[in-house]
């Protein structure tokens, strides 16, 4: 799911008691509890870059589930108004990562993750009253490389071991960059969990459809509910090889592709398709291109048409001044601004 940086709110800080509420507090917190550690004035932006290790850009053959070959399907006349949207809410999450300390070269990371769902009532965005937004601050350390870490910290669920032996991840080396990448991976997992919590709560309680900024495949509930639609803006992995690729890059505004099924490893299968919300003439091939994820349903063609029209409708108003305005819905920009204000 998408993310943006943020800071922890004062309300959350009160709930946390003595637990740090900011990178600065975390720095002092670690100094008190980990003898021999040295504070680091690391900028969050510098720390963030470790988590942006690029996935390889790949083309994948789409497993088309709609009748016929992978093709472009017009869902809206470009000369017509964008129409109405059926989305009732928007979900997004953010994360902020800072190296606050180091001990003998081992980075100690402080991160906050946050997620919120925003409800749209009478065309205005408000907080979702059912579940408050989530703002969580945690310390990420590789336990195995910090022998003197107090038991008190080891037992605290808010202190995350970034070098734990697990089936999904191999143990990182002592290389600081490797440790940072491991920490960032954990932070991303935590942010995704926060987003999942809210998405599942939405599916359990709301009637309307939720626009989720990112994939649904991490959650069994979301990936099988018709109340959630995932929208992916980045395309390191393109489900369009061979003829499908030509169809995809030539997709016009107001068109979608055939629906295909994706089944990621360790995740849940969903139906997916591409839709172009803005004309790409004069821009790169991925301009205005979104990949949509939705629960697999028997009437997938009609569902894809309907959701595609909603997605196109969300193109107004523009999400400017955000740099991703060609793909971003204004509701998601509003949610990000909201998270920036409270976290």
């Amino acid at each position: 799911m998408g993310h943006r940086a943020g800071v922890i709110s004062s309300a959350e800080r009160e709930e946390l008691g003595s637990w740090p509420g900011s990178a600065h507090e975390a720095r002092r917190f670690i100094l008190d509890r980990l003898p021999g550690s040295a504070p680091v004035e690391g900028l969050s932006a510098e720390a963030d870059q470790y988590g942006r290790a690029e996935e390889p850009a790949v083309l994948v053959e789409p497993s088309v589930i709609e009748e016929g070959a992978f093709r472009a399907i017009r869902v809206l006349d470009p000369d017509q108004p964008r129409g109405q949207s059926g989305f009732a809410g928007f979900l997004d999450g953010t994360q902020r990562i800072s190296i606050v300390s180091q001990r003998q070269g081992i980075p100690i990371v402080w991160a906050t993750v946050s997620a919120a769902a925003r409800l749209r009532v009478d065309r205005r965005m408000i907080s979702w009253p059912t579940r408050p937004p989530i703002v969580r601050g945690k310390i990420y350390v590789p336990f195995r490389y910090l022998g003197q870490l107090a038991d008190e910290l080891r037992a605290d669920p808010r202190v995350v071991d970034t070098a734990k032996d697990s089936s999904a991840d191999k143990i990182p080396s002592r290389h600081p960059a490797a440790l940072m990448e491991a920490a960032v991976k954990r932070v991303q997992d935590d942010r995704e969990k926060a987003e999942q919590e809210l998405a599942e709560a939405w599916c359990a309680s709301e009637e309307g459809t939720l626009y989720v900024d990112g994939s649904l495949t991490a959650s069994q509930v979301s990936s099988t509910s018709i109340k959630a639609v995932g929208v992916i803006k980045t395309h390191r992995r393109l489900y369009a090889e061979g003829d499908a690729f030509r169809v995809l890059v030539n997709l016009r505004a107001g068109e979608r592709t055939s629906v295909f099924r994706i089944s990621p490893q360790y995740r849940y299968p969903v139906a997916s398709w591409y839709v172009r919300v803005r004309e790409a003439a004069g821009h790169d091939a991925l301009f205005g291109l979104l990949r949509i994820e939705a629960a697999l349903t028997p009437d997938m063609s009609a569902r894809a048409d309907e959701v595609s029209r909603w997605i196109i409708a969300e193109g107004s108003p523009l999400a400017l001044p955000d740099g991703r305005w060609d793909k971003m819905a204004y509701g998601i920009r509003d949610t990000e601004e909201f998270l920036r204000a409270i976290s």
Partner: protein
Amino acid sequence: MTEPLGRVVATERKPNTPHEFHFWTSLDCPVGIGTIVRVDGAHPVEGKIPHIYGIVVEGFSYTDLQSPMHDVLSHDGIPSSAGFAVTERAEIRLYSAAVLRQIPEEPLQPVPMGEVFLAEEQDVATALRMDSYLKEGANTGIPVGVYRAGATDSVIYLDADFLLGPEAAHLNISGMSGLATKTSAVEWLLSSLFAHFPESKGSVAAVCFNVKGPDLCFLDQPGTNLDDRDRELYEKMGVKPGPFENVSYFAPYTAKGFGLNTLRSNEALLHNVKPLTWGLREVLQYAEVLLNKDDIDAKADALIDFITERVVDRRFDQDSYLSREHTVQSFGDLENWFKDLLRGMERANAESWRTHHIATIRKVRNRLSNISTRCAGLVTDTGDVSDLPFGSFEDRAVYVVDVATLEEDAQDLIFARIVSKLREHLERRDLGVKHLVVFVDELNKYAPNEGQDTYVRKMLLDIAERGRYLGLVLFSAQQFRSQVHRRVVGNSGTALYGRMDGDELATPGYSVLSPATRTKLATLEKGQLMVRHPHFTQPIFVRFPRPAVMQGRDGAEKFPQAADVSLEHALYRSLRTIDEGVSMAWVRDLVSLYDEGELLAARNAAMVAKPANMRGFFESRLRKKIPAQPAFNAGLTPRETISARSLPDDDPYGL
């Protein structure tokens, strides 16, 4: 406890200070420019939660758009398609407020973060420091209007100690003409003042100069255009919605002398209209007002002083040039004295008299004699004086001096003399009242910021700077405050502003107001005022009711001005106000016997004296004449009676 309507916000770029803070509200919040709000701080200072009171002086609204172009792009350049957007942009209402008061007042700190509430009635009193003068037993509050915001409907009081002295004094009103601001506000405020001025502070009266139209001519007549909202305001502010109960009008005669020179000349309203006439003694003291400085050099000034000191009201007989004894008591006497003196000098071929050159004497004679012509109707040749009741002014009475139709010279003379007399009496504490309000409209004419120094301007400056110690208070009004002498408006403790002209608001005097406040001033509705008062740290907007007196235009329609009348009718109308038994036949008989000047002089004397036996008094002022009697001879029937021919005016014996 009411719900908060906003939250204080501060950023590094837009921080809060001890004097200003910022807050946001919901989009449908009843906050606007001039709204009073209260901030409750979140953290105690020295054990006390701070409360900050402020008035909204600026408002901002914006969305998350960084460029208008983004909105154009959002809607494909088609404004009507904006309505199809599925989401409305996030929008903010952000307000800046000027601090009215902080409690506790020390230490004076920047306004803290906190919740913002609409000020309730008690909050308004605290914010404006009205609590200090609305105490039980020591209440000196004079209602000036009602402040309204949301559900709050709060009376705003001025402090009498700062309106009529001794702490501060004077009131100045600015506003565009024709928008029921200046005159209406003064009429309302005088009503309020008379209703609420504390008895413990003594008596109060008002002298109003009606300088234009019929504005102040019907203060004793009930208003015709009050509506329920006005009556509610009167009730809320504890003022009876009625006309002034004790009003006297004063106006000079017309140049012809038959009637009074006022728009209040309708016969039905003459009962409280009195003539204003002065003689030589009264005028000479203020000759400076009427005489041009270029005319009156040091030599002429010395001669005028000599005449004032040694000639007027004295027997003047021991002089070689004079042919007879003179007792100069009127302009007529003075003219005779000049004639006699100049003839004597010519006879003796003398060039000077008592060091005064003959040319100077001729010049002074010319200028002084001219006064009774220039101020005809006000200045009498005969010396009859009809004046304001100096020494017997009554509490809560209004004395209107109508100078609206007079020449500028006469207006200046009236203003100078009346204010000087008021001042003299107040200094001696024998005016009859302890406090006196003098209302002058068109102040930019009488006390202009530029131009040569005039006697009237000097007097206004004197009142503005020293009047409060005497109880002499100036209520003044003008369209352009920037054109009035700074020391006059600067000494006005209280200032009211109605709707203002944009050009006037662009002058430096208004730069202390925020752009939004200036804009509000330029668009104020009728019945709204901005008030500045020494207790209020920021100007406050209030609403006041229509005055409960007949407006000039309505009065002029209901009581049209009397048409020019004959001498007979003029005498009949005037004398009937003293004695209702006066008949037209009696007047006609007198008119047939006596000349116009003599009759008018007798009328003027009767109007001043108001004798019990009016007819006897009147006839005693006329020279004895034997009226023509009807001839009833035995051989003649009444139809055949031959009327006696009227006697020549200058020959009472008919010789």
